[in-house]
């Protein structure tokens, strides 16, 4: 269980990204966080694994106070949290398998990691993770030779290789085209259901949020403004989260918008 207790974050330049956000997420949930750019989604996600340090508040995961953990303990906590990034964050020059094995680094001794000597087990884990996202045949290909969608699947495999209990996905499909976005979201949903890994996803496409999320959390200007089941979220819900009318840029599949619902043609 993940508890976010009164998380606030003010950056050194004075920007207050999060204001007293509190949230409790149960095991196995698939939570989608929506909000405009700058609403604080990324910051919130990164506070959970302390890639960003909260200015105040606590993060408690399975009873462990993450915010108070020392560096070594934090590292251990992070090995149980897999993260997926908008720009994939793969090491472009390295092979796919190496990128996925990086997910095992937290579980390997530093020296073995330096020597590149991963155990047979680790390699098997890595290959089976690649299998899970259907990209095992590219294991020995250089990462930068894959398409965007394939690279993101490698990113997912890397997170899976950690055998995590929690997956954080920061705008995982923002850099992908519509069909690929669906593939990736479907993969995330499937992993959440099959392996019961709690998943928290940041999205700014509301149609994807409604389609794949089971619970939707809305952030606006750093504050929590909505928290409820996905099927209860209407167009009006999102408009109140965003504070404005919905337009085409908020939807992944533009064709799905009914003509009568098309809002004003504001610039993207």
């Amino acid at each position, binding site marked *: 269980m993940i508890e976010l207790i009164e998380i606030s974050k003010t950056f050194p330049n004075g920007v207050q990204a999060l204001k007293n956000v509190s949230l409790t997420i149960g095991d196995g949930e698939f939570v989608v966080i929506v909000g405009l750019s700058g609403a604080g989604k990324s910051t919130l996600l990164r506070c959970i694994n302390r890639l960003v340090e909260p200015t105040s508040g606590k993060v408690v995961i399975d009873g462990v106070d993450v915010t108070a953990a020392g560096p070594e303990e934090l590292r251990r906590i992070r090995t149980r949290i897999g993260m997926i990034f908008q720009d994939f964050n793969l090491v472009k020059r390295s092979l796919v398998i190496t990128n996925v094995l990086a997910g095992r680094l*937290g579980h390997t001794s530093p020296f073995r990691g330096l020597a590149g000597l991963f155990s047979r087990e680790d390699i098997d884990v890595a290959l089976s993770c690649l299998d899970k996202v259907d990209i095992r045949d590219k294991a020995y290909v250089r990462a930068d030779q894959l398409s965007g969608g394939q690279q993101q699947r490698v990113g997912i495999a890397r997170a899976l290789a950690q055998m995590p209990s929690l997956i954080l996905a920061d705008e995982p499909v923002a850099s992908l085209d519509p069909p690929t976005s669906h593939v990736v979201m479907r993969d995330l949903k499937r992993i959440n259901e099959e392996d019961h890994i709690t998943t928290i996803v940041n999205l700014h496409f509301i149609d994807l949020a409604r389609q794949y999320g089971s619970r939707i959390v809305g952030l606006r200007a750093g504050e929590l403004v909505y928290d409820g089941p996905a099927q209860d979220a209407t167009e009006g819900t999102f408009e109140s989260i965003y504070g404005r009318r919905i337009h085409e840029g908020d939807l992944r599949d533009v064709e799905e918008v009914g003509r009568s619902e098309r809002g004003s043609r504001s610039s993207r």
Partner: protein
Amino acid sequence: MSKRWAEVNGEAGPRADAHAPARPSKARTTMAFIFVAALYVWSGIGTETRPVSLLLGIPDMANLFSRMWPPNMAYLRTMVVPLMETMQMAVLGTALGAALAVPVVLVSSRNISRYRKAYYTARAVLNLVRTLPDILLASVFAAALGFGALPGVMALAVFSFGIIAKLTSETVEAIDPGPLEALSATGSPRINVVYYGVVPQVLPQFVAYCLYVFEINVRAATVLGLVGAGGIGMWLQRDMNLMMYRNASAIILLIFAFVLVMDFISNWLRGRLV
């Protein structure tokens, strides 16, 4: 005519009292010129520059050249070993310098260095080391350790270290931070974050810098002997002192050819790096 133009175009036309754009101050440019000219004159006097001397000296230089021609090519047979020593000095010096540079780069790169004081210290040391030319270091080391190849190698190592560390740090500071963030997020130990995230991104550039420094070191190694630090330069020094000019010119030609070949090889290797 301008009035007609103004009527046709429906504008008021140029007004007599309109502000012309301000002209850049001529005074400042003139002052700059005078300053630079003064610098020239002052430098000329300080260095005892007398173009006349040059003209008068041409016969002496021509004399020297005539005594150096034709070069004694047979002499080169005995120069093979010294040439090898020169190349070995360049290779070792570059390798040692590169090896020394690796740990320091971890400290002197702002994005992966952990302690600010260490970062500033490392940066300062690198900047100071880079002010001393390789031959200067070689002459100091030769005076401290005695003549031979060892001071030469050490001097080249220190010199290479400075350049490689500085250039590589700059490359490291410019890498994509994304993969590093991802690796930290997996809970990987810090040293592995560096090894898996930083190294693949900078390795080709690092090797390119090593080759670039190697080129410089090859040139330097050929003349380090002139200050006693080993290599073919020592034989050149000896021949010049003994006035065996035809031997000396043979050595100079050999150095020439050698540097050109090494440059070529180095450029080819760098091209293959991509």
